[in-house]
């Protein structure tokens, strides 16, 4: 009986360990995915001081840390320079006006609207808020 009892206990422990291992194997990817989903891009802020705005007004627009800043009626008009195709940084194209992606050639107008692909969406316009004599650009993960 002791042998039977011992074997039964061993079988029970063996089965229990299998279930624990199976549960762990099932939960591990979910845990990893959960951790990774929280490790997404953090929002970033860009401070536009009066000097930058003055330069943007004088030159018609300036690229600052991944955004393009123009000034309209004293208020900054900001476009994200992240291409909506695959995320390359687009650059101003003074010759033709607007913006061009150096990776796959997408073209956008000065207002950020897509003119030719492969991108299909317009450039994003991040939110802007005033803080004293400065303006703060609030970039989400998709804008940056």
């Amino acid at each position, binding site marked *: 009986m002791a042998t039977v009892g011992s074997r039964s206990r061993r079988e029970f422990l063996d089965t229990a360990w299998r279930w624990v291992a199976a549960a762990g194997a099932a939960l591990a990817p979910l845990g990893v995915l959960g951790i*990774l989903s929280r490790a997404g891009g953090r929002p970033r802020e860009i401070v536009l001081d009066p000097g930058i705005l003055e330069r943007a007004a004088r030159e018609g627009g300036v690229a600052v840390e991944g955004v393009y800043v123009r000034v309209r009626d004293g208020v900054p008009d900001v476009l994200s320079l992240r291409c909506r195709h*695959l995320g390359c*940084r687009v650059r101003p194209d003074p010759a033709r006006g607007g913006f061009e992606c*150096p990776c796959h*050639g997408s073209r956008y107008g000065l207002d950020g609207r897509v003119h030719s692909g492969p991108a299909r969406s317009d450039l994003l316009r991040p939110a802007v808020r005033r803080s004293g004599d400065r303006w703060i650009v609030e970039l989400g993960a998709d804008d*940056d």
Partner: protein
Amino acid sequence: MIEPAAGPRCRCGDLALGFLAVTVLSGVALAPLYRPEAALESVEAIEAGLPWAWLLRAVHGFAALGFLLATVAHLVDAVRAGGRERLPAGPWWRSTLLLPLAVLAMLGGFVLRGDAESLAALAVWRGVLETIPLLGAPLATLLLGPPGAGFGAVTAHHAGTFSLLLWLIAADHGRRMWPTGRSWAVALLSSAAIAGVVPLPLGPAEPTGVGLLGPWYLLGLQGMLLDLPPATAWLVPVFLAGGVGALAHVQGRARTATLAALGALLAAWVGWTVRLLLAGAG
């Protein structure tokens, strides 16, 4: 076991292990000189500020290229000689991971330069990964770190994950941990010889007037992205690796059809490379 087809068989497998060994050891020597938080500055210092470091970097780069080419040559040789009968399906499938891992490791090295082309490549790499259903965003974070987080994750996978996996799979495939003395010598001397005369590229921090090109072995994919949806950039490599893996299971006409499909994909790859270059990188 079926005897290989007639014809010369290169010793490309052992040579590939030689190139891998040179790549890893030169990478270990380079690692203390590289700073992920100041990538471009540290690579510029390697190129110009430290004696012989430029040669070490070039040997690292050309040995990696040698590994890629020797692995491709070994694969072609094995397929041509009927390697499917000589290698069981399990090891064959594991071995098919060598090429994708080599490309990922080399793409990581390209990205770690920190110049304008590498930043664009990092953005595109992330953008392509994010098109994978369900797993895309977490996988991008796992491989590349969070957006805007710099080169830390890429450095870790380039120097650690991919290198370790490559050596493990290569050792499992070849049943040896170290290359032969001859392969060591050929890999080291040829890498050093090319490194001495061909400079490894390093671009400016900001893009210039022309379009940006990715690494030469991925220009076909970059070209496809001019005309096809972004998911093409991971679907095509998956089909290529899957097709090579499937060669372990198919015979006769099915094998011929699989080889024809692989050939068509490679031809498309070459065609879009030409299209991209003619379009001036987009």
